[in-house]
């Protein structure tokens, strides 16, 4: 009786739902023909829809890179906007295949939430922004005692803020909102003196304010915010594909492979470039990973190398104009470092 009922229920449920997956994430993704990518509800430079509704930004492009690695086609990706609250459940339940949503890598998220972060696509740190016109003379975060601080709820930012003011024996009034656009509106309306979030975010948000020139970002960085994509635990193959897509982006930049020259580079004399681009005879690097051997070519053709991706979305090629800083390659004094592809 029970079993029949369960059978009926399950059958009914399955009729309503997307395809069930007993197989690996890669098989499911291949079967449905696209990657479901969890992004933010709109953060300029990382993931935000443009006028046509296409998602732009580092996080969105990273998902395109993974799609390029898997399908050889960077457009085979669909985006799901997620609030800070929904993001982990969405990944845990399989609603999205990758969570690429300016999410900070912490031990708690790795161990207690069942996620696997694949690396750090953007090294960020939490900063403060104030309206310099209204608050002349404030040039350090240590002068902020007694200020009203706007912050997004449910983020590591909120926790860092509490820790920072407590450690420096300062007081503050938190003004907490659920969504980024609500925090922006409240800060712009003068509800609070200070806006705190990741520094990259502050630069992006400053552009959307009524008079951007009045606002300055204070020099202090009060936390480490390594932002990166995450996948579900328990599927090593998928984890490796996403992780090595990230490393391939770095490796391409290191070797000078760009969107423009990738086809010429295939015939390069350098054995390393040939190996990375899958031009070695009898190479098995790609197929061992579970993708085709020219996966790096596909990635670079779709989104460019890491440097191009950075400059286009948040760097000099974007309105945000953020310097590479610690996000430069390790060869240029930054922290971005990829293990060898061999």
């Amino acid at each position, binding site marked *: 009786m029970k079993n029949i009922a369960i059978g009926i229920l399950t059958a009914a449920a399955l009729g309503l*739902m*997307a395809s069930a*997956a*007993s197989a690996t994430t890669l098989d499911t993704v291949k079967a449905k023909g696209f990657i479901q990518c969890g992004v933010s*509800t709109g953060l300029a430079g990382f993931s935000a829809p443009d006028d*046509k*509704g296409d998602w732009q930004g580092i996080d969105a492009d990273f998902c395109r890179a993974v799609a390029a690695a898997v399908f050889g086609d960077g457009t085979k990706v669909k985006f*799901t906007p997620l609030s800070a609250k*929904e993001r982990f459940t969405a990944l845990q339940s399989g609603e999205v295949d990758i969570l690429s949503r300016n999410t900070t890598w912490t031990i708690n998220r790795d161990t207690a939430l069942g996620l696997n972060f694949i690396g750090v696509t953007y090294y960020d740190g939490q900063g403060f922004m104030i309206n310099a016109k209204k608050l002349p003379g404030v040039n350090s975060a240590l002068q902020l005692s007694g200020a009203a601080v706007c912050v997004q709820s449910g983020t590591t930012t909120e926790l860092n803020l509490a820790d920072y003011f407590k450690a420096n024996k300062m007081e503050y009034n938190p003004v907490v909102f659920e*969504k980024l656009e609500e925090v922006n509106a409240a800060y712009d309306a003068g509800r609070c003196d200070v806006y705190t979030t990741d520094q990259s975010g502050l630069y992006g948000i400053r552009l959307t304010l009524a008079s951007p020139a009045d606002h300055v970002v204070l020099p202090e960085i009060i936390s480490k915010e390594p932002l990166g994509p995450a996948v579900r635990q328990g599927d090593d193959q998928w984890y490796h594909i996403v992780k090595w897509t990230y490393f391939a982006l770095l490796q391409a930049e290191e070797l000078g492979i760009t969107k423009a020259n990738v086809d010429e580079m295939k015939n390069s004399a350098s054995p390393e470039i040939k190996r990375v681009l899958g031009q070695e005879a009898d190479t098995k690097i790609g197929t061992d990973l579970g993708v085709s051997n020219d996966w790096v070519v596909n990635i670079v053709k779709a989104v460019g190398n890491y440097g191009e991706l950075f400059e286009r979305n948040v760097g000099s090629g974007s309105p945000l104009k953020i310097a590479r800083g610690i996000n430069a390659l390790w060869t240029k004094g930054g922290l971005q470092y990829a293990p060898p592809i061999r």
Partner: protein
Amino acid sequence: MQEHDMSWVRTEMVLAQPAPAGVAGLGAWVRRNLIASVGDTIMTIIGIALVAMTLPQIINWAFIDAVWTGPDRTVCATVTQGGIQPDGWSGACWAFVNAKFGQFMFGTYPIEERWRPILVGILLVVLMVPMLMPSVPRKGLNALLLIVGLPVVSFFLLVGGAFGLQHVETARWGGLLVTLSLSFVAIVVSLPLGIVLALGRRSKMPVVKMLCVIFIEAVRGIPLITVLFMASVMLPLFLPPGVTFDKYLRALIGVSLFAAAYMAEVVRGGLQAIPKGQYEGADSLGLGYWQKMYFIVMPQALKLVIPGIVNTFIGMFKDTSLVTIISMFDLLGIVKQNFSDANWATAQTAKSGLIFAAFVFWLFCFGMSRYSMYTERRLDTGHKR
């Protein structure tokens, strides 16, 4: 009758005299309705002051000083804010609404595919208008098309993926499209579900009755946000690993179940008002339970509670705005999302956008409530006390 030949008797009626100046004309109307007593006069003066203070400002802001068209924020910003308007200017920025109108209606639905939601809208109007006009015949066929045909056709048109139509995932739906489609489906689903729940609550089977009572009271006791939270963060955990629901579908389920509980209570009110004799009469005719309900009880009960049903519809329509909290972009959500567009960031943007959204919601809700009043009058079969 005999003819009088007495000349002092008038044979025609005297023409009615105009009413004395004291009870007719504008002066009398004013005296009666505005300054009947000292207290009344004071109230009138306060009222006039209130209107005089607000109305000119509103009209100035919304029409006279408003900006209707423009390419970007400069048309709605003052000189100090980097725009072209004189300092101290304050007016609605309808140019913002104008520029974003497509998004407000369809979200990020692909532009070349927007004929599909427009077609669905036309179908809705074509089926809805004759449905609402009492004089048009063939109500049964019309209702069937509206409640069964339209959702099926719309599903294929909007989602696509069949008949050569490009698939458009629901994450790209937005604006009024989401608001209307969510509430329409919720209305279509919640009414039958509500009727079943109401019947269950009045059932003689204790288990069924208890379950219905628990469901109805539990849902009515919690806010819709909690239900939506549950749909968005808990539902995925309830399903077997790897099985996922579309977010839109989850919101749809949440809103429909929520509305069904309220609908059940409205319907129950109607059921309770049906005299016992009707049930007994149906029984004595030998009708089964469902026959009795379908032919005898429900037609009477539903007619009684039409205002309540429409009120629930209005409430549901307004409640769909809450899906913005679980990061879906209904009309309100997409309007709010566009506030953070750097091209349109001005002091007037938010106000103009919100007022536009409020106006659209108001239009629909007010229309529904007026129609319900009209139906109520029409169906009033004269059992007035």
